[in-house]
């Protein structure tokens, strides 16, 4: 998978590039907005990581330009501007996700994975299947190895999101954002409690746990 990093802070870009390369991604770097737009036009990328404040052309302009030209590549904004209004501006410009600096690298990887995955699954599925776990989105039922698992509506949504991102790390912030649709900073481990309840329902009584805790990042659902 190819990622274009448009970032004027060379050290930050270098760290990001190394980290992403380590995670198995192929990276290219553009040091400012204009270069970034050029590189994005020329190359085929799966995800763009765009800094918001850059010389020559800022991140919002870069994304607006690319979207105007019909480029639909998923964009992850990186910004030191982390307030809610900044987020709104970023998302309105056409970005798909927004990450505030300084960020945890695990968070970056998780979000990049989620963005690249979303592009692959275009078809509307009625059932999701991860290993022996099966989810029927119409009947809203879940089975693991043939045994029906009874879930609360929110637990169902939580599991659905985990299944759609099976094999990927998913952070607590992402879960709060995507499942509860809130974006705030819970002071306590409230998401962990929800996950642990879900885990007790889908893993209890089975010899192999599917819902994994990823240290320093969040959770991952493995087949």
């Amino acid at each position, binding site marked *: 998978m190819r990622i274009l990093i448009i970032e004027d802070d060379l050290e930050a870009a270098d760290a990001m590039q190394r980290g992403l390369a380590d995670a198995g991604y192929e990276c290219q770097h553009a040091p400012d907005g204009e270069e970034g737009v050029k590189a994005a036009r020329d190359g085929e990328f799966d995800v763009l990581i765009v800094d918001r404040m850059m010389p020559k052309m800022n991140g919002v302009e870069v994304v607006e330009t690319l979207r105007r030209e019909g480029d639909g590549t998923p964009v992850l904004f990186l910004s030191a501007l*982390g307030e809610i209004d900044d987020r*709104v501006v970023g998302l309105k410009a056409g970005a798909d996700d927004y990450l505030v600096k300084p960020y945890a690298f695990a968070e970056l990887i998780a979000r990049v994975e989620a963005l690249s995955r979303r592009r692959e699954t275009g078809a509307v599925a009625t059932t999701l299947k991860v290993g022996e776990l099966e989810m029927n989105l119409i009947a809203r039922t879940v089975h693991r190895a043939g045994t029906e698992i009874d879930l609360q509506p929110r637990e169902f949504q939580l599991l659905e999101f985990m299944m759609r991102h099976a094999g990927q790390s998913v952070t607590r912030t992402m879960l709060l954002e995507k499942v509860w649709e*809130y*974006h*705030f*900073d819970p*002071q*306590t481990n*409230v998401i962990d409690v929800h996950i642990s309840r879900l885990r007790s329902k889908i893993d209890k009584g089975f010899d192999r746990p599917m819902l994994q805790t990823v240290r*320093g990042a969040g959770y991952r659902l493995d087949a």
Partner: protein
Amino acid sequence: MRLPRLLRTTPFRLTLLFLALFAAAAAAFLGYIYIATAGEVNRRADKEISREMESLQAAYRLGGADALNQTLVERSLGERPFLYLLMTPDGKRLSGSIEESPVADFGDAREKWTTFTLTETDLDGAEVKRPARGYQVRLEKGEILFVGADVGESESYVMKIVRALWGAGALVIVLGLAGGVLISRNVSRSMAGLAEVVNAVRGGDLKARAPVRGARDEYDELAEGLNDMLDRIERLMGGLRHAGDAIAHDLRSPLTRLRARVEVALIEAESGKGDPMKALEQALEDTDGVLKTFNAVLAIARLQAAGSAPDPQTFDAAELASDMAELYEVMCEEKEQTFEAEITPGLAIKANREFMAQALANILDNAIKYTPEGGAIMLRLRRRSSGDVEFSVTDNGPGVPEADRPRVVERFVRLERSRSQPGAGLGLSLVSAVAAAHGGRIELSEGAGEYDGRGPGLRVAFIIPPLG
């Protein structure tokens, strides 16, 4: 020479301007009155003189110069207010009540009007000059007849009116000037009070306040507005200073800890001892903690500085309350606390949804954190009788002593017994900042009270105005 300060004030200049306008108007008015009345006096005199002249001419036509002479003598002796003079064609006096004609340069003219001054000696022997009008006509056989009338009486009335008007004008101007000076002094005194405050503040004295005289006029309003603004600025400045100190204080210890940990890890790694991985993980965790504190401080500072919440949307408060109840209920279950929610549906509010969620989350977090296992927590959403929308969270934990309640809302204030709990003491300050940014407030009060070895508990109410 520079004008005295007072005379340079705007009110005084306005007074002068109005006085000038008034004076011009008064002058025009006076002129008109003079022309109208004085003209009228002359016209009336002329009419009477003409009538007299006609009757004399009638007598002349009937009886000639002798008859006219006779009539003149009779009339001069009577009570008539006219002056008569009959002259030969070459201007010699024949008879009449005056010695010579005031008409200068009559020549061959048929008739002529004139205005002249009549000099008389009054009872005290003083000479009195009075204005008069006269009409001189050459009769058919050449004799010259003059009839005049004293218009002094009427004219003096006019002059009296004119003089009174002049006097009134002068009085108005004097009073106006005095009033202008008074008003200017009054105004400039009020303005000077304000200017003094502005200068003091510019000089760095944020404690200076404008005097409010209690007159409830626009100056008081301005002074109150200025004082409110200064209060707010002072509060913000104080908040900033306090935040700076508090950030320095509260971030210094975790940063020092972090630094020490990294340093020790380096030393240990060099000598091949210890677990650098573990040290790095610990360092990462410490960094996250610092960042969290930092973000919260930043959010509070920005909310307070902006004075209003960004990106407000209209939504159902009940939905938010239910979401938060659903999110936090499991937390209570983990701690074996009873959780109850009593949510009034359909209360629309206009607010920033994320900040509202953050505020409610902080309140619930606190309640769950400080209420011991087995306690009870209740989330309630209702409309107050005032119309305000109130979210409240009541617990039956140890509560907060009344004296400490105002303090716990301040940034970084943590009560002694909560020191052992994680957190930076920013939770309620953020809640309070969110409430204020939405035009609301938070209220802390006692919970359900002591019962069964529990309590008294704490009730945190988050109150914001309803939509519209």
